[in-house]
């Protein structure tokens, strides 16, 4: 939804056409990406200002907008390619008139400032950095992702099984092109792993809290537990308390050598969510002498 064009230009509803044009020119001078090539943030704002002026700068369109016949969203512009996107890579227009006088000196600077020197210089291209967000399970089990670079090229990123949060994947030769025949740089993709609802990763082990019922805790039995590679059946021993940790070997994170970490299941005894009269009656008859707070001396 487009913002109110009057607010965008910072003029009153009853501003004259002249005032609107002045407001547009004042903002556009500051924000035009080609006149401010170092300011990457200005671009979005310039788009808004231009769209607002497309509407209000035309007296007919403005009148129709004021009467509510058209709304601000109709004026949104298609993505514009700015001149700076091309000019800096070197085009037929790029000019060295701003520094041609530096080129005479017989020193390192002539390498850069002389056209000839620049054609001879051979350098590796710079690396480019990206971030990629992954779900925990995709990072553990491995995955394939496509990353679209700012210049529109699509990069296939192979996520190896066991990838950690903060790990950097290096894609050789996928960075910026080299200068003067130098090799290209690398693309460095930093992985950010989103937390999982119930799995947490510590090193190569996976930790999970598994709720069990009172009868499973007292009598033991087989229960199903989730692991990153799927559901498994595990045995809960008799008299398993809250906090008991059971280890599922080889159900953790795959390592580079082919082995795997473990999953550590912490049990948590749960009473039924709704009061159960039968259970209440049964427990009322239970005469236990156990005091769980003994260690706290209360």
């Amino acid at each position, binding site marked *: 939804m487009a913002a109110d064009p009057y607010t965008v230009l910072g003029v009153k509803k009853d501003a004259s056409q002249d005032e609107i044009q002045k407001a*547009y*020119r004042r903002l*556009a*001078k500051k924000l*035009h990406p*080609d*006149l401010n*090539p*170092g300011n990457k943030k200005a671009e979005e704002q310039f788009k808004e200002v*231009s769209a607002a*002026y497309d509407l209000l700068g035309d007296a007919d369109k403005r009148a129709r907008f004021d009467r509510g016949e058209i709304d601000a969203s109709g004026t949104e512009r*298609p993505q*514009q*390619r*700015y*001149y*700076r*996107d*091309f*000019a*800096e*890579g*070197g*085009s*037929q*227009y*790029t*000019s*060295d*008139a*701003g*520094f041609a006088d530096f080129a005479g000196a017989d020193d390192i600077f002539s390498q*850069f*400032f002389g056209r000839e020197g*620049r054609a001879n*210089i051979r*350098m*590796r291209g*710079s690396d480019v950095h990206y971030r990629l967000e992954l779900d925990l399970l995709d990072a553990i089990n491995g995955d394939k992702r496509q990353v679209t670079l700012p210049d529109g090229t699509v990069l296939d990123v192979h996520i190896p099984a066991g990838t950690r949060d903060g790990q950097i994947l290096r894609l050789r030769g996928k960075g910026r092109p080299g*200068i003067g025949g130098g090799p290209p740089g690398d693309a460095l993709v930093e992985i950010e792993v989103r937390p999982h609802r119930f799995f947490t990763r510590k090193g190569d082990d996976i930790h999970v809290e598994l709720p069990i019922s009172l009868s499973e805790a007292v009598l033991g039995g087989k229960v199903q537990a989730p692991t990153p590679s799927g559901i498994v059946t595990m045995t809960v021993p008799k008299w398993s308390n809250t906090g008991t940790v059971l280890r599922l070997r080889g159900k953790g994170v795959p390592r580079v050598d082919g082995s795997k970490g473990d999953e550590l299941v912490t049990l948590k005894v749960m009473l039924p969510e709704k009061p159960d009269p039968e259970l209440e009656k049964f427990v009322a008859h239970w005469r236990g002498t156990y005091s769980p707070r003994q260690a706290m001396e209360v």
Partner: protein
Amino acid sequence: MAFARHAQVDRKVLDRWAEAGWLSPRQNSTGQRFSEVDLARAYLIRDLQKLGVNDDSIPIVLDLVDQLHGLRQVLRELLLAMKLQQQGQDGT
């Protein structure tokens, strides 16, 4: 022509700007071929006119913008070379 329509600039206007030397499209057998960089430059000229820059001043602004881009390009290469040299010294 799709290009001129997209730029919201008339083909005749593009030809006039090329004649004035504001655009330098490549020549081929069928005449002038406007590329994407010409299109982007045409956008800039159109925006400059909307900003109230008159026709006499347009080539001055274009020339300064071109010099600015030339300087930015050299500055970028210079910074990159310094970084690589630094990395070489650090042995990384």
